[in-house]
């Protein structure tokens, strides 16, 4: 992919004193156990992937899986021990301090799990902070920050201090702050994990609305598989520093690459995740009924219609051209079968 905004090649992050030496000696074959015996902890193990412009990559993993470490390598909050990272073609690890600061001031935004707002600044000052750091004068930065306040729906609260806001509102400030410099790359580190379930859902919807409007290139970290399915264009599932599988939500649900991934997919309601195109058959056959469904429909929405049909249903694309077919049995198999015995 030529338009990859973020590109990682064999990124390693190993904590410990002799990390670099050990990595060299390991020769690309890093085994967490041997490293641990020598006092090193493997945070990220051979991560390679690309994120295209406007794409949202969700990195999913349980705590300690190295997902946050991976994000910090890519934002260079920690230096990767090995490998190469490119942001818009720039080799991140080769940047000097000044270039790095420039990059952060203009191209990167980041949202944190615990909000990380400055306690001594009001909402609007917090949002204006990255702008002021950049050297934009007070009036301009405040007026720009006020736009951001409106964007995240906090109008009327711009003079509140962070401690006077609820968790959801604080994270809105965090989001607004990270967007204030209009970054191209947007990092979100478990932004909704510290929120109540109801608020979390609301924030996810809000986030999708924003992304629809802004079309940023996003790396989103979460430990919640449902959240990953809901938001992601593609999901990377991590375990012990290794990316176990990186694919679209549908493909992960349908074809879990490892036993570990399969455990997550077991409880997922497939009809809510899969689209018709994920389960349709390419052959159209001769026996099509009258009903046509779009390939972009989520199964849940059309399942009833399809199940009441006797005949196979035709699947159409945007241009109303029939490109495949699906029969009721397939729907039943997808929704009810396969969960325990695989596909």
């Amino acid at each position, binding site marked *: 992919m030529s338009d990859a905004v973020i590109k990682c090649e064999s990124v390693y992050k190993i904590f410990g004193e002799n990390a670099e030496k050990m990595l060299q000696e390991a020769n690309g074959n890093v085994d967490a156990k041997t490293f641990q015996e020598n006092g090193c902890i493997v945070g990220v193990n051979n991560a390679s992937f690309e994120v295209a412009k406007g794409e949202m990559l969700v990195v999913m993993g349980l705590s300690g899986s190295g997902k946050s470490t991976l994000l910090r390598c890519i934002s260079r909050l920690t230096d990767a021990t090995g490998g190469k990272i490119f942001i818009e073609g720039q080799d991140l690890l080769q940047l000097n301090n000044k270039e790095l*600061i420039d990059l*952060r001031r203009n191209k990167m935004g*980041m949202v*944190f799990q615990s909000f*990380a707002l*400055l306690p001594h600044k009001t909402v609007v000052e917090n949002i204006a902070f990255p702008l002021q*750091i950049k050297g934009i004068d007070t009036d301009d930065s405040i007026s720009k920050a006020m736009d951001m306040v409106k964007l995240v729906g906090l109008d009327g609260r*711009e003079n509140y201090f962070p401690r006077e806001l609820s968790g959801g509102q604080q994270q809105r400030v965090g989001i607004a702050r990270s967007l204030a410099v209009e970054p191209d790359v947007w990092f979100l580190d478990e932004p909704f994990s510290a929120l109540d379930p109801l608020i979390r859902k609301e924030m996810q919807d809000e986030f999708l609305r924003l992304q629809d409007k802004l079309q940023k290139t996003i790396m989103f970290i979460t430990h919640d598989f449902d959240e990953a399915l809901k938001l992601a264009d593609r999901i990377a599932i991590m375990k012990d520093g290794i990316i176990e599988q990186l694919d679209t939500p549908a493909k992960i649900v349908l074809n879990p690459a490892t036993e570990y991934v399969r455990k997550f997919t077991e409880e997922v309601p497939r009809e809510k995740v899969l689209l018709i195109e994920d389960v349709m058959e390419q052959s159209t056959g001769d026996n099509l009924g009258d009903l046509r469904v779009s390939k972009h429909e989520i199964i849940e929405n059309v399942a009833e219609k399809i199940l009441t049909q006797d005949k196979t249903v035709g699947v159409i694309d945007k241009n109303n051209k029939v490109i495949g077919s699906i029969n009721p049995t397939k729907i039943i198999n997808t929704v009810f079968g396969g969960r325990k015995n695989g596909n």
Partner: protein
Amino acid sequence: MEFLKKNPKIFQWLFLLIVFFALCFAIEVPETYKFIRGQAEFIKDPNQSTFVFAGKEVRYYAFDVFWRLPPLLGWLPIWINDSLFFLMNDWMPMEFWNEDTQEFKTRPLLLQISRNLTGFMTFIIELIREILLGGLETIVAFTSWDFIDANPWAELPGLPWTIVAAGATILSYKLSGKSLAIFAGLTMVYISIFGQWKPSMQTLSFILVAAPLSFIFGLGLGISAFKSKRVEKALYPILLVMQTMPQYAVLVPALVLFGVGDHAAVIITMIVAIPPMILLTLLGLRAIPPEVIEAGKMSGCNNWQLMFKVLIPTARRDILIGVNQVIMVCFSMAVISAFIGAKGLGFNLLLALNQLNIGLALEAGLCISLIAILLDKMSLAWANKQTDYFGNLSFFERNKNTIFFIGAFIIGIVLAYIGTFLFKDTFNYLFEIPHNKGISTADFWNKGVDWIFDTFFVYIKAFNTWLIQDVLQPMRALYLRMPVIATIVLVVGAGYLIGGIRSALVVCGLTLFIALSPWWDRALVTTYMATFGVIVSCLIGFTVGTLCFQSKSAAKFMLGVCDIFQTFPSFVYLIPVMMLFGITDTSVLIAVIVYATIPATRYTIEGLRSVPVGLHDAATMSGVNKFQRLTKIEFPLAFPHMMLGLNQTIVFALFMVIIGAFIGTEDLGQYILKALSDKNGAGIGLTLGICVAFIGLIFDNLIRTWVDKRKKHLGIA
């Protein structure tokens, strides 16, 4: 036996005690031993033995080494002294240009540095003093006497007290509101009508230099310790010793380096005030959540922006507690540094105490305390103040404080001008009320003290005699009866049982230093006084704390009382006890007890408060009554924190015991006081100070190690 098997620790402790007492009884008191003048003295005595180290002769009384160790470190003070003199007078002589004589002059480097530094300090102090009190030194320094004679307008008069008082009130109002403003106003009026204006402003001018400088240096060092592990490691032992070092002890070396006067006082105050500032800065910076730092970095901060726009504002609460500490230390040093010639309230206080004029001492002491509390409250208010950025205020509302101050300024000057007509023949009371020309209640207090003494003389005397004869003397004798080997076994054994081999080695080193110094006997006396004070303080503090904890409002009230008591400079505590008990050990001990009870009470309440609410509820649901809840739940959980209180109590008690030397005790403090007036006292003063610090550190190490273990055990670390 079952019991011992279940608790092996108790068996170990018992064994240690048995060994200790066995040693005590086994080692006889040598016949030649007399507790008269310690083991080492500067006078020659035919009974003394000598040894020579690095060309220095060190004298001591030879005893059985099991009983007292020879003062192998006796050369240390002499050596320190000689090196200081060498550094000051002979080290690195260089050519310096002399402005006055217009020629080059050879001077040792350090002397030149010290002279320049003192010159600079003196200049700032004088400058502030001139603004507050009026004077000529700085203007003359800028220009010349000829200039002043030619231009009389340049003679800057000091601000009338009315203006300073109004300024303080308005500033307090701006910072906190009505109540602080009223307090500030009353304080200022008290100071001026009691004729304390001049000394107060002298003290204030010295604090206005010492406090900001201490703040800047403390913050800077705290930041560098935060940034570099190496700096932190280098600073840590110094900080540790400085925290337990009596402030007295620093006086003597500073005297040698910087001479006598306000500038030396400022430098000493900085030495004492910087360590807590460093610690609190470090504490605050450490407590910042890592994500806030990352957020700062991701906002594109460079290092400078990160430090001053993100880290320090985020840690401001702890840093401002540090500011508060700095102010407190400054005021306590304002008194102590009067020993080396700082002018102001402290000097008056010492003078009055020396003359046994309790009433005057009380007035000066009250002045210091009031200013201390005022500055403390103002800095705290500043810490908690939030600025309103977007308020739509009119010009008048935004600038009303400035306008009021300008108004007050004009009124004050007009009043002072009118005063020149009103009080033609006497002092202009509307400009400045001279020292000792204001109202004084000294006579009243002095008469009151006399009356108390006359009326209760019999009882006080009886109590005094009983305490000294039946409690203190035997206790002192017991402490002095300890052979040095027994003491070391006890301390090292305790260290081993509490913290393992590492702790044992640390306390062993600290004890050995004291034992090998020439003042072991004196150290034992210091320890005995401190122990007595600590035991009584803890009994009172733990009881009062526990009782107050039973009601929320009482606890809050008590913590407030502790706060206020803590702002009193330590010397102030000597005043009332001297009123009642005269110049005896009893006075010192009572001052120690009052002073050391503060941390004991505070930590008890805080410890009990820190017990989680969930546990309270759980205990209540298990049907415990109040007493059971206290003994079974709250005490065990609060105990580690209370032990930290004990630690503080020991430090406070040691401080007060040393200051008590001013009244007259026979311990280390007395020698420090003596060293002050000794030309060769620098080394002795410093070594004595280190001895006192080490006594504190032995207990500190044992208690802290125990607390850390216990907290880990209870899972509340």
